[in-house]
Protein backbone atom coordinates (compact mmCIF):
# COMPACT_ATOMS: atom_id res chain seq x y z
CA UNK A 1 0.00 0.00 0.00
CA UNK A 2 1.62 3.14 -1.16
CA UNK A 3 0.19 5.84 0.98
CA UNK A 4 1.07 8.87 2.95
CA UNK A 5 1.05 6.87 6.16
CA UNK A 6 4.52 5.63 5.28
CA UNK A 7 5.83 9.16 5.61
CA UNK A 8 5.15 8.95 9.31
CA UNK A 9 7.50 6.02 9.46
CA UNK A 10 10.04 8.13 7.63
CA UNK A 11 9.72 10.68 10.40
CA UNK A 12 10.30 8.06 13.06
CA UNK A 13 13.45 6.80 11.42
CA UNK A 14 15.68 9.74 10.72
CA UNK A 15 17.05 9.86 7.19
CA UNK A 16 20.60 8.59 7.04
CA UNK A 17 21.92 10.86 4.34
CA UNK A 18 22.36 14.31 5.82
CA UNK A 19 23.18 17.67 4.35
CA UNK A 20 26.70 18.33 3.34
CA UNK A 21 27.67 14.94 2.07
CA UNK A 22 27.68 15.80 -1.58
CA UNK A 23 28.72 19.21 -2.83
CA UNK A 24 28.95 22.35 -0.79
CA UNK A 25 30.97 23.38 2.17
CA UNK A 26 30.22 21.86 5.48
CA UNK A 27 31.06 25.02 7.42
CA UNK A 28 28.72 27.17 5.39
CA UNK A 29 25.94 24.63 5.68
CA UNK A 30 26.34 24.32 9.42
CA UNK A 31 26.23 28.10 9.79
CA UNK A 32 23.24 28.25 7.50
CA UNK A 33 21.33 25.64 9.43
CA UNK A 34 22.18 27.38 12.69
CA UNK A 35 20.86 30.67 11.29
CA UNK A 36 17.69 28.91 10.20
CA UNK A 37 17.17 27.41 13.64
CA UNK A 38 17.70 30.80 15.22
CA UNK A 39 15.16 32.27 12.86
CA UNK A 40 12.66 29.60 13.82
CA UNK A 41 13.26 30.35 17.49
CA UNK A 42 12.59 34.04 16.93
CA UNK A 43 9.49 33.11 14.98
CA UNK A 44 8.31 31.04 17.92
CA UNK A 45 8.90 34.01 20.18
CA UNK A 46 6.92 36.26 17.86
CA UNK A 47 4.05 33.81 17.75
CA UNK A 48 3.97 33.39 21.52
CA UNK A 49 4.09 37.15 21.95
CA UNK A 50 1.28 37.61 19.46
CA UNK A 51 -0.86 35.24 21.48
CA UNK A 52 0.11 36.22 25.00
CA UNK A 53 0.51 39.98 25.01
CA UNK A 54 -2.47 41.89 26.32
CA UNK A 55 -3.14 44.78 23.92
CA UNK A 56 -2.72 45.63 20.28
CA UNK A 57 0.49 47.64 20.51
CA UNK A 58 2.50 45.10 22.42
CA UNK A 59 1.25 42.39 20.12
CA UNK A 60 2.33 44.32 17.08
CA UNK A 61 5.64 44.99 18.80
CA UNK A 62 6.24 41.26 19.15
CA UNK A 63 4.96 40.41 15.70
CA UNK A 64 6.78 43.17 13.85
CA UNK A 65 10.20 42.76 15.39
CA UNK A 66 10.23 38.98 15.66
CA UNK A 67 8.84 38.57 12.18
CA UNK A 68 11.40 40.83 10.54
CA UNK A 69 14.40 39.40 12.32
CA UNK A 70 13.41 35.77 11.90
CA UNK A 71 12.60 36.15 8.22
CA UNK A 72 15.96 37.78 7.61
CA UNK A 73 17.81 35.12 9.58
CA UNK A 74 16.09 32.27 7.82
CA UNK A 75 16.67 33.76 4.40
CA UNK A 76 20.34 34.33 5.16
CA UNK A 77 20.66 30.75 6.37
CA UNK A 78 18.94 29.54 3.25
CA UNK A 79 21.34 31.52 1.12
CA UNK A 80 24.32 29.96 2.87
CA UNK A 81 22.95 26.44 2.58
CA UNK A 82 22.44 26.80 -1.15
CA UNK A 83 26.08 27.86 -1.66
CA UNK A 84 27.11 24.55 -3.14
CA UNK A 85 30.19 25.80 -4.92
CA UNK A 86 31.74 29.18 -5.56
CA UNK A 87 30.50 29.33 -9.12
CA UNK A 88 28.81 32.35 -10.67
CA UNK A 89 25.37 30.84 -10.39
CA UNK A 90 25.48 30.30 -6.66
CA UNK A 91 26.84 33.80 -6.10
CA UNK A 92 23.97 35.17 -8.16
CA UNK A 93 21.52 33.16 -6.10
CA UNK A 94 23.08 34.50 -2.92
CA UNK A 95 22.82 38.05 -4.22
CA UNK A 96 19.15 37.54 -5.05
CA UNK A 97 18.44 36.18 -1.60
CA UNK A 98 20.28 39.10 -0.05
CA UNK A 99 18.10 41.44 -2.12
CA UNK A 100 15.05 39.73 -0.65
CA UNK A 101 16.55 40.22 2.81
CA UNK A 102 17.06 43.91 2.07
CA UNK A 103 13.45 44.33 1.00
CA UNK A 104 12.12 42.49 4.01
CA UNK A 105 14.27 44.80 6.10
CA UNK A 106 12.67 47.79 4.39
CA UNK A 107 9.06 46.77 4.11
CA UNK A 108 8.27 44.69 7.16
CA UNK A 109 8.87 47.46 9.73
CA UNK A 110 6.98 49.84 7.47
CA UNK A 111 3.97 47.58 7.40
CA UNK A 112 3.94 47.18 11.15
CA UNK A 113 4.30 50.95 11.48
CA UNK A 114 1.32 51.44 9.17
CA UNK A 115 -0.74 48.99 11.21
CA UNK A 116 0.24 50.74 14.43
CA UNK A 117 -0.63 54.13 13.04
CA UNK A 118 -3.97 52.88 11.75
CA UNK A 119 -4.78 51.50 15.18
CA UNK A 120 -3.69 54.75 16.86
CA UNK A 121 -5.86 56.83 14.59
CA UNK A 122 -8.73 54.47 15.18
CA UNK A 123 -8.52 55.37 18.90
CA UNK A 124 -7.27 52.02 19.98
CA UNK A 125 -6.07 52.59 23.55
CA UNK A 126 -2.92 51.00 24.86
CA UNK A 127 -2.96 49.12 28.11
CA UNK A 128 -2.21 51.43 31.02
CA UNK A 129 -1.07 50.97 34.58
CA UNK A 130 -4.62 51.21 35.82
CA UNK A 131 -5.72 48.43 33.57
CA UNK A 132 -2.94 46.27 34.86
CA UNK A 133 -3.84 47.01 38.44
CA UNK A 134 -7.47 46.26 37.80
CA UNK A 135 -6.64 43.08 36.01
CA UNK A 136 -4.43 41.98 38.88
CA UNK A 137 -7.13 42.61 41.39
CA UNK A 138 -10.11 41.44 39.48
CA UNK A 139 -10.45 38.85 36.82
CA UNK A 140 -8.05 38.87 33.93
CA UNK A 141 -9.11 41.44 31.37
CA UNK A 142 -8.66 41.15 27.71
CA UNK A 143 -7.84 44.23 25.71
CA UNK A 144 -10.48 46.88 26.02
Amino acid at each position, binding site marked *: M*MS*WLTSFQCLASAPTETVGTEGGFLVLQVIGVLLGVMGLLFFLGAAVGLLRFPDFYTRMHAAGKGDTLSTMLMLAGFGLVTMEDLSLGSWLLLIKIMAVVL*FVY*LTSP*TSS*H*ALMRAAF*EDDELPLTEDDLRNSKRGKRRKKR
Partner: protein
Amino acid sequence: MKWISLIPVFSVGALLLFAAKDFPEWGDPHSPASQSPVSSHFINNTGVDTEVPNMVTAVLADYRGFDTMFETVVVFIAGIAVLAILKGSGRRPRGRHRSYKLEAEPDLIVTYTVRLVVPVIQLFAFYVLAHGHVSPGGGFQGGVVMGASFILIALAWDLDHALVRMSLPRCMVIAAVGIIIYAGIGFLSMFMGGEFLDYAELERLLPVSREMARYYAILGVEIGVGFTVASIMFALYANLSSEGRLKGGL
Protein backbone atom coordinates in the same frame (compact mmCIF):
# COMPACT_ATOMS: atom_id res chain seq x y z
CA MET B 1 -34.31 26.08 6.35
CA LYS B 2 -30.61 26.31 5.90
CA TRP B 3 -30.18 22.56 6.14
CA ILE B 4 -31.90 22.12 2.79
CA SER B 5 -28.75 23.38 1.15
CA LEU B 6 -26.92 20.42 2.60
CA ILE B 7 -28.90 18.05 0.39
CA PRO B 8 -27.44 19.15 -2.95
CA VAL B 9 -24.08 19.70 -1.31
CA PHE B 10 -23.83 16.19 0.03
CA SER B 11 -25.25 14.59 -3.07
CA VAL B 12 -22.62 16.36 -5.15
CA GLY B 13 -20.00 15.26 -2.67
CA ALA B 14 -21.14 11.65 -2.79
CA LEU B 15 -21.00 11.69 -6.57
CA LEU B 16 -17.53 13.13 -6.62
CA LEU B 17 -16.22 10.73 -4.00
CA PHE B 18 -17.77 7.87 -5.90
CA ALA B 19 -15.79 8.97 -8.92
CA ALA B 20 -12.65 9.53 -6.90
CA LYS B 21 -11.74 5.90 -6.58
CA ASP B 22 -11.25 5.65 -10.33
CA PHE B 23 -8.69 8.40 -10.38
CA PRO B 24 -4.99 7.65 -10.41
CA GLU B 25 -2.97 7.90 -7.26
CA TRP B 26 -1.00 10.94 -6.28
CA GLY B 27 1.96 11.44 -8.57
CA ASP B 28 1.41 8.36 -10.66
CA PRO B 29 3.65 8.78 -13.73
CA HIS B 30 1.46 6.40 -15.73
CA SER B 31 -1.77 8.29 -15.17
CA PRO B 32 -3.77 8.98 -18.34
CA ALA B 33 -3.11 12.70 -18.22
CA SER B 34 0.64 12.19 -18.12
CA GLN B 35 0.56 9.52 -20.79
CA SER B 36 -1.42 11.56 -23.28
CA PRO B 37 0.39 12.20 -26.56
CA VAL B 38 -0.33 15.92 -26.38
CA SER B 39 1.55 16.42 -23.14
CA SER B 40 4.47 14.25 -24.23
CA HIS B 41 4.62 16.16 -27.47
CA PHE B 42 4.79 19.44 -25.61
CA ILE B 43 7.51 18.16 -23.30
CA ASN B 44 9.57 16.58 -26.06
CA ASN B 45 9.30 19.19 -28.76
CA THR B 46 9.22 22.54 -27.03
CA GLY B 47 12.98 22.87 -27.18
CA VAL B 48 13.10 21.93 -30.83
CA ASP B 49 10.20 24.06 -31.94
CA THR B 50 10.64 27.26 -29.99
CA GLU B 51 13.95 27.03 -28.11
CA VAL B 52 12.17 28.25 -24.99
CA PRO B 53 13.34 26.37 -21.90
CA ASN B 54 10.19 27.06 -19.91
CA MET B 55 7.59 24.75 -21.37
CA VAL B 56 4.70 26.54 -19.71
CA THR B 57 5.53 29.81 -21.43
CA ALA B 58 5.95 28.10 -24.78
CA VAL B 59 2.67 26.22 -24.52
CA LEU B 60 0.89 29.29 -23.21
CA ALA B 61 1.96 31.71 -25.90
CA ASP B 62 2.70 29.50 -28.85
CA TYR B 63 0.94 26.17 -28.96
CA ARG B 64 -2.14 27.53 -27.25
CA GLY B 65 -1.75 31.14 -28.33
CA PHE B 66 -5.30 31.45 -29.57
CA ASP B 67 -6.63 30.44 -26.16
CA THR B 68 -4.42 32.91 -24.33
CA MET B 69 -5.38 35.71 -26.67
CA PHE B 70 -9.03 35.36 -25.82
CA GLU B 71 -8.28 34.94 -22.13
CA THR B 72 -6.65 38.35 -22.39
CA VAL B 73 -9.74 39.64 -24.13
CA VAL B 74 -11.83 38.28 -21.26
CA VAL B 75 -9.74 40.24 -18.78
CA PHE B 76 -10.14 43.35 -20.92
CA ILE B 77 -13.89 42.89 -21.12
CA ALA B 78 -14.10 42.46 -17.37
CA GLY B 79 -12.31 45.78 -16.94
CA ILE B 80 -14.67 47.50 -19.35
CA ALA B 81 -17.66 45.97 -17.60
CA VAL B 82 -16.52 47.20 -14.19
CA LEU B 83 -16.07 50.65 -15.65
CA ALA B 84 -19.52 50.53 -17.21
CA ILE B 85 -21.20 49.29 -14.04
CA LEU B 86 -19.64 51.81 -11.71
CA LYS B 87 -19.41 54.80 -14.02
CA GLY B 88 -21.09 57.85 -12.57
CA SER B 89 -22.68 55.97 -9.74
CA GLY B 90 -20.60 57.47 -6.98
CA ARG B 91 -22.21 59.00 -3.96
CA ARG B 92 -21.07 61.97 -2.02
CA PRO B 93 -18.50 61.28 0.66
CA ARG B 94 -20.38 60.78 3.87
CA GLY B 95 -19.75 59.46 7.30
CA ARG B 96 -16.75 59.65 9.55
CA HIS B 97 -13.97 57.92 7.74
CA ARG B 98 -14.67 59.58 4.43
CA SER B 99 -14.14 63.12 5.55
CA TYR B 100 -11.34 62.00 7.79
CA LYS B 101 -9.54 60.14 5.05
CA LEU B 102 -9.75 63.08 2.73
CA GLU B 103 -8.15 65.36 5.24
CA ALA B 104 -5.49 62.99 6.46
CA GLU B 105 -1.90 63.49 5.51
CA PRO B 106 -0.24 60.47 3.99
CA ASP B 107 2.13 58.82 6.40
CA LEU B 108 5.70 60.00 5.95
CA ILE B 109 7.40 56.69 6.67
CA VAL B 110 5.06 54.72 4.47
CA THR B 111 5.34 57.12 1.57
CA TYR B 112 9.10 57.22 1.83
CA THR B 113 9.35 53.45 1.78
CA VAL B 114 6.96 53.24 -1.11
CA ARG B 115 9.05 55.79 -2.94
CA LEU B 116 12.02 53.51 -2.48
CA VAL B 117 10.28 50.28 -3.29
CA VAL B 118 8.04 51.11 -6.23
CA PRO B 119 10.82 51.49 -8.83
CA VAL B 120 12.24 48.17 -7.76
CA ILE B 121 8.83 46.54 -8.03
CA GLN B 122 8.39 47.89 -11.53
CA LEU B 123 11.86 46.76 -12.52
CA PHE B 124 11.04 43.34 -11.11
CA ALA B 125 7.84 43.32 -13.15
CA PHE B 126 9.83 43.87 -16.32
CA TYR B 127 12.28 41.20 -15.23
CA VAL B 128 9.48 38.71 -14.64
CA LEU B 129 7.94 39.54 -17.99
CA ALA B 130 11.16 39.28 -19.97
CA HIS B 131 12.68 36.39 -18.04
CA GLY B 132 9.58 34.25 -18.36
CA HIS B 133 11.27 32.19 -21.03
CA VAL B 134 13.77 30.59 -18.71
CA SER B 135 12.19 30.92 -15.28
CA PRO B 136 8.69 31.00 -13.86
CA GLY B 137 6.99 34.16 -14.96
CA GLY B 138 5.56 35.71 -18.05
CA GLY B 139 3.04 38.22 -19.17
CA PHE B 140 0.32 37.54 -16.63
CA GLN B 141 2.61 37.59 -13.61
CA GLY B 142 4.65 40.56 -14.76
CA GLY B 143 1.51 42.49 -15.58
CA VAL B 144 -0.03 41.82 -12.22
CA VAL B 145 3.16 42.89 -10.41
CA MET B 146 3.21 46.08 -12.47
CA GLY B 147 -0.43 46.78 -11.65
CA ALA B 148 0.26 46.09 -7.99
CA SER B 149 2.94 48.78 -7.96
CA PHE B 150 0.34 51.37 -8.97
CA ILE B 151 -2.05 49.96 -6.39
CA LEU B 152 0.71 50.45 -3.83
CA ILE B 153 1.02 54.09 -4.82
CA ALA B 154 -2.72 54.50 -4.44
CA LEU B 155 -2.61 52.89 -1.01
CA ALA B 156 0.29 54.94 0.30
CA TRP B 157 -0.88 58.35 -0.88
CA ASP B 158 -4.38 58.40 -2.29
CA LEU B 159 -6.06 57.49 -5.51
CA ASP B 160 -5.49 60.87 -7.15
CA HIS B 161 -1.78 60.45 -6.72
CA ALA B 162 -1.84 57.19 -8.61
CA LEU B 163 -4.25 58.46 -11.23
CA VAL B 164 -1.83 61.24 -12.10
CA ARG B 165 0.65 58.57 -13.12
CA MET B 166 -1.87 56.20 -14.66
CA SER B 167 -5.14 57.86 -15.47
CA LEU B 168 -8.08 55.70 -16.30
CA PRO B 169 -8.34 56.60 -20.00
CA ARG B 170 -4.66 55.87 -20.29
CA CYS B 171 -5.29 52.54 -18.57
CA MET B 172 -7.92 51.52 -21.05
CA VAL B 173 -5.84 52.68 -24.00
CA ILE B 174 -2.88 50.64 -22.78
CA ALA B 175 -5.12 47.62 -22.25
CA ALA B 176 -6.43 47.91 -25.79
CA VAL B 177 -2.89 48.38 -27.09
CA GLY B 178 -1.90 45.15 -25.38
CA ILE B 179 -4.58 43.20 -27.20
CA ILE B 180 -3.68 44.96 -30.43
CA ILE B 181 -0.06 43.92 -29.98
CA TYR B 182 -1.12 40.32 -29.45
CA ALA B 183 -3.52 40.19 -32.36
CA GLY B 184 -1.17 42.25 -34.48
CA ILE B 185 1.60 39.70 -34.12
CA GLY B 186 -0.92 37.05 -35.08
CA PHE B 187 -2.05 38.95 -38.14
CA LEU B 188 1.51 39.81 -39.06
CA SER B 189 2.42 36.17 -39.17
CA MET B 190 -0.70 35.60 -41.22
CA PHE B 191 0.35 38.23 -43.75
CA MET B 192 3.79 36.68 -43.90
CA GLY B 193 2.23 33.55 -45.31
CA GLY B 194 1.55 31.40 -42.31
CA GLU B 195 -1.53 30.89 -40.24
CA PHE B 196 -2.89 33.14 -37.55
CA LEU B 197 -0.40 33.22 -34.66
CA ASP B 198 2.02 31.02 -36.55
CA TYR B 199 5.09 32.90 -35.43
CA ALA B 200 7.62 30.90 -37.41
CA GLU B 201 6.80 32.91 -40.51
CA LEU B 202 8.20 36.01 -38.87
CA GLU B 203 11.68 34.84 -39.80
CA ARG B 204 11.41 36.92 -42.93
CA LEU B 205 11.23 40.06 -40.85
CA LEU B 206 13.75 39.10 -38.20
CA PRO B 207 17.32 38.12 -38.97
CA VAL B 208 17.03 34.84 -37.06
CA SER B 209 16.10 31.24 -37.63
CA ARG B 210 12.53 29.96 -37.53
CA GLU B 211 12.84 28.74 -33.96
CA MET B 212 14.28 31.98 -32.70
CA ALA B 213 11.55 33.89 -34.55
CA ARG B 214 9.03 32.01 -32.44
CA TYR B 215 11.13 32.76 -29.37
CA TYR B 216 10.99 36.49 -29.96
CA ALA B 217 7.36 36.46 -31.03
CA ILE B 218 6.49 34.77 -27.73
CA LEU B 219 8.23 37.66 -25.98
CA GLY B 220 6.18 40.17 -27.96
CA VAL B 221 2.96 38.37 -27.17
CA GLU B 222 3.81 38.28 -23.49
CA ILE B 223 4.42 42.02 -23.58
CA GLY B 224 0.93 42.49 -24.98
CA VAL B 225 -0.56 40.33 -22.25
CA GLY B 226 1.41 42.25 -19.65
CA PHE B 227 0.09 45.61 -20.89
CA THR B 228 -3.51 44.46 -20.70
CA VAL B 229 -3.29 42.72 -17.36
CA ALA B 230 -1.36 45.51 -15.63
CA SER B 231 -3.73 48.26 -16.66
CA ILE B 232 -6.87 46.24 -16.02
CA MET B 233 -5.73 45.27 -12.52
CA PHE B 234 -5.16 48.89 -11.65
CA ALA B 235 -8.45 49.94 -13.24
CA LEU B 236 -10.28 47.30 -11.19
CA TYR B 237 -8.75 48.58 -7.98
CA ALA B 238 -9.32 52.24 -8.82
CA ASN B 239 -12.97 51.70 -9.59
CA LEU B 240 -13.78 49.35 -6.76
CA SER B 241 -12.02 51.28 -4.04
CA SER B 242 -13.74 54.54 -4.84
CA GLU B 243 -17.09 53.26 -6.11
CA GLY B 244 -16.40 54.75 -9.49
CA ARG B 245 -15.79 58.26 -8.20
CA LEU B 246 -12.06 57.96 -8.86
CA LYS B 247 -10.94 60.20 -6.07
CA GLY B 248 -10.27 60.09 -2.40
CA GLY B 249 -8.33 57.79 -0.15
CA LEU B 250 -8.28 54.03 -0.31
